C-alpha cells in the first residue's frame, strides 16, 4: 500500500488553534452583513431563463388551433408514462388533432423528451413551476390547462431552434 505523506506539518500558530479560530469567526462575521440571497418567494418570484424545463404545455396558434397532430410520439417516448393522447380527424389542413390530450403531473419527471421528440414543435416545456394539487384528480391536466398561446412560449421555441 502506498503511504501518502503529509505535505507539511501544521506550524505552531496553526496548532494552538486560536488564531485560526479568530480567522474563521471574522469570516462569518463579515458574511453576516453581506446582502442576502434569499428570494422572498410569494412576493418576489423567480423568472427562469429560456433553458428552464417547467410544466410541459401544448402550443396554440394565434387562430386558436393546436399545433399537435396527435402522432403519439411524446406519449411513446415518455419514460414515466405520463402522457395520454387520443387522435381524431378534422377538416383542417393537418387532418389530425388530439381529441384527448392528458398529462398526469404526478408522473411527469420534467425530462423534456416529449418536446425533443415532437416533430411539430407542438409540446414545449414552459416556465411554470408552481404546481400544487390538493387532489389526485386535479393533477391530471387536460387540453383546457395544457393549451397555451404561442407568444407565451416563443422564447423557449427560439431556444430549442438554436440548439437543433
Amino acid at each position: 500500500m502506498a503511504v501518502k505523506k503529509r505535505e507539511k506539518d501544521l506550524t505552531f500558530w496553526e496548532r494552538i488553534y486560536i488564531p485560526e479560530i479568530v480567522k474563521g469567526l471574522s469570516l462569518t462575521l463579515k458574511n453576516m452583513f453581506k446582502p442576502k440571497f434569499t428570494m422572498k418567494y410569494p412576493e418576489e418570484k423567480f423568472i427562469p431563463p429560456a433553458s428552464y424545463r417547467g410544466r410541459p404545455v401544448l402550443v396554440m396558434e394565434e387562430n386558436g388551433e393546436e399545433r399537435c397532430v396527435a402522432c403519439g410520439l411524446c406519449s411513446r417516448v415518455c419514460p414515466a408514462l405520463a402522457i395520454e393522447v387520443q387522435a381524431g380527424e378534422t377538416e383542417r389542413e393537418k387532418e389530425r388533432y388530439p381529441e384527448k390530450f392528458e398529462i398526469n403531473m404526478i408522473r411527469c419527471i420534467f425530462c423534456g423528451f416529449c418536446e425533443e421528440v415532437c416533430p411539430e414543435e407542438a409540446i414545449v416545456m414552459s416556465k411554470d413551476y408552481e404546481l400544487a394539487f390538493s387532489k389526485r384528480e386535479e393533477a391530471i391536466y387536460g387540453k383546457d390547462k395544457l393549451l397555451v398561446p404561442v407568444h407565451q412560449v416563443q422564447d423557449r421555441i427560439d431556444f430549442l431552434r438554436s440548439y437543433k
Partner: protein
Amino acid sequence: MNIWELILISLIKILLTVTVMLLTVSYLVYFERRISAWAQNRLGPNRVGWQGVLQPFADVLKLLLKEDIVPVVANKPIHTLAPIIALFVAFTTYAVIPIGGTLSILGYSIPLVVADINIGILYVLALTSLGVYAITFAGWSSGSKYSLLGGIRSSAQMISYEISMGFSIGGVLLFAESLRPYAIVQSQGALLWNAWIQPLGFITFVVSAFAETNRLPFDLPEAEPELVGGFHTEYSSMKFAGFFLAEYANMIIASAMIVTLYLGGYNLPFINVDLLGLSNILVILIQVLSFLIKTAALLFFFIWVRWSLPRFRYDQLMNLGWKVMFPLSLINIIWVAALIMIFKL
C-alpha cells in the same frame, strides 16, 4: 423582615427568574436561527409576526401538538425522567447567580439573587454535573444504538471537561477567597477582572463551558451526521422540547457563570458605579443592564462560534481535554498563586 415577607420576596424572585429564563431561552432559539441564517447569507425565519418575533411561540405550539412517541424497547420511567432532570438542572442552577447589587426599596434591602448562599459556586458545579445523568439516562433508556453512543460520548466528554473547568475556577477562588458569587463579583471590582488577570484560566473555562453545554465545536453527544440525533434520537413532542430548552438554558447559565467569574459580574468596566453618587435604584439598574449586556454578548458569541467552527473528532476532543486543557488550567492555578504571593493581593 419576618419569615412570610422573606418567602414572598423569594417567590417573586423565583417567578421573575424563571419567566425571564423561559423567554430568553425561546428567543435564543430564534436568534440562533436568525444568526445562522445571516452567517450563511440567508434571511432566516421572518414571517411569523414582525421580523418573525413570534416564531418561538409557533414552535412551542407545534411541539405541544406533536404525538409523544416512546419506543417499545425503551425503559419508560427513565425515558420520561431524563428530560425532567435536564430541565431541573438547567433551571435551578440559575438560583445563585447575582444579577445586581442590593436593592433598597420600601425599607427592605433585597439582594438581586434568588439564593445568596456561601457555597454558590460549589452548588453550580454540583448541579451541572447532575446534567450528565439526564443525557446518559436518555441515551441508555431509549433502547437505540445511536442514543446509547450519544450518551456514552456525553458522559466521557463531560467528565473530562469538568476537571479543567473545576481547576480554572480554582484560580478565581484563590483571588476571591470565597465560594460566594457576590464575594467573587466584589473581589473583581471595576478594574481587576479575572479575564485580564488570568487569561489562561479564562480561555480554559470558556472552552470547557462549550464542552459542558454540548455546543459545537464539542457537540459530540448529538453529532447529527454520525448519530442521527444523538441522545435525543428517540424523543419527540414536549420531551424533546425539554432537552432543547435545557440546552439553551445551559447556554445562558454558562454565559452568566463566565460573566460572574471572569468578566466582573454586574460591574461596569473601569467605572465604579458606587462612587458616582447615584441613587440606589439607578445604580441597580445600571448594574443589571451591564450584567444582561455582558451575558447577551456571550450568548451571541456561543451562537457565532457554532456557525463558524467544525466539530472535533472524538479522539481530538479527548486529547484536547486531557493533554491541553487540564495542564493549562493547572498552570493557571500556579500563575495565580504566584501573583498572590508577589503582590500580596
